[in-house]
């Protein structure tokens, strides 16, 4: 395969005879995705790889104008390919799971009041855990908007990828990240105001 500088890649991919450069780039992306995905997909890997490579190649070509030259073009392209593949795998993994179901069932287990605190803890420790649980639940109700509560339950507690939650909440992942970040900052500030450190809470439940 021909060695190319970033400028050579850009000139050829945008030029009148782009076919050789596109073919080389496709090969690079295909090999990269095979390395990235061979541990994650067992059945039908080759056909999945072909589809992801094609999607990634189109995305790279459509976004050449955004390449800032801060890395090798092939590194930047490989990054896009991984993002295309992983986003699609996440979409498939989560497609049948609604926001409501992840909020109602974040741990994948039935909600049981008896499991609120550690059943093996000494009574004193259980009392302290109960107080902390009550404080944190009150803090969430008082400090956060309903939208922030939903986002936190889905992303942080339920583990749903932020892009998947953003789609279900009809927003984008940037805006949702900022919403959650604001929520975390509010909770942190409220804890500090009340002289409760996050570390102390984690210790109490360890």
């Amino acid at each position: 395969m021909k060695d190319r500088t970033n400028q050579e890649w850009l000139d050829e991919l945008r030029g009148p005879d782009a076919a050789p450069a596109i073919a080389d780039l496709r090969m690079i992306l295909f090999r990269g995705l095979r390395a990235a995905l061979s541990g994650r997909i067992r059945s039908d890997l080759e056909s999945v790889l072909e589809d992801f490579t094609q999607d990634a190649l189109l995305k790279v070509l459509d976004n050449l104008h955004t390449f800032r030259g801060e890395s090798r073009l092939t590194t930047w392209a490989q990054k896009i390919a991984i993002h295309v593949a992983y986003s699609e795998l996440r979409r498939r993994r989560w497609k049948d799971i609604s926001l409501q179901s992840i909020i109602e069932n974040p741990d994948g287990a039935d909600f049981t009041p008896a499991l609120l605190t550690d059943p093996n803890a000494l009574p004193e420790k259980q009392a302290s855990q109960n107080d902390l649980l009550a404080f944190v639940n009150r803090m969430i109700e008082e400090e956060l908007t309903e939208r922030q509560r939903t986002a936190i339950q889905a992303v942080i507690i339920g583990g749903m990828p932020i892009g998947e939650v953003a789609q279900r909440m009809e927003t984008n992942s940037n805006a949702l990240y900022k919403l959650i970040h604001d929520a975390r900052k509010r909770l942190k500030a409220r804890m500090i105001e009340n002289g409760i450190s996050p570390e102390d809470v984690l210790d109490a439940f360890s």
Partner: protein
Amino acid sequence: MLNANSLKKLVRAVLHTREQELTCQECFDQLDQFVELQLDGKQPAEAMPLVQEHLETCGNCRDTFEALVLVLEKNPSP
């Protein structure tokens, strides 16, 4: 209402909250640069601390980062 498991997840996230954080998109935009610094042995955590901090707390972005490192190690750019 939170149970103990949920509370721990939430409080861990609060513990690692910083005043300034990159969003996933902002981290992604700089990831190619970050990974190349890493593979060149150039201390990316010092040069790009906000990216480093985001990768320490965001599992999805960390997956992308690790995959990119793996891909570039196996298929070094010509």
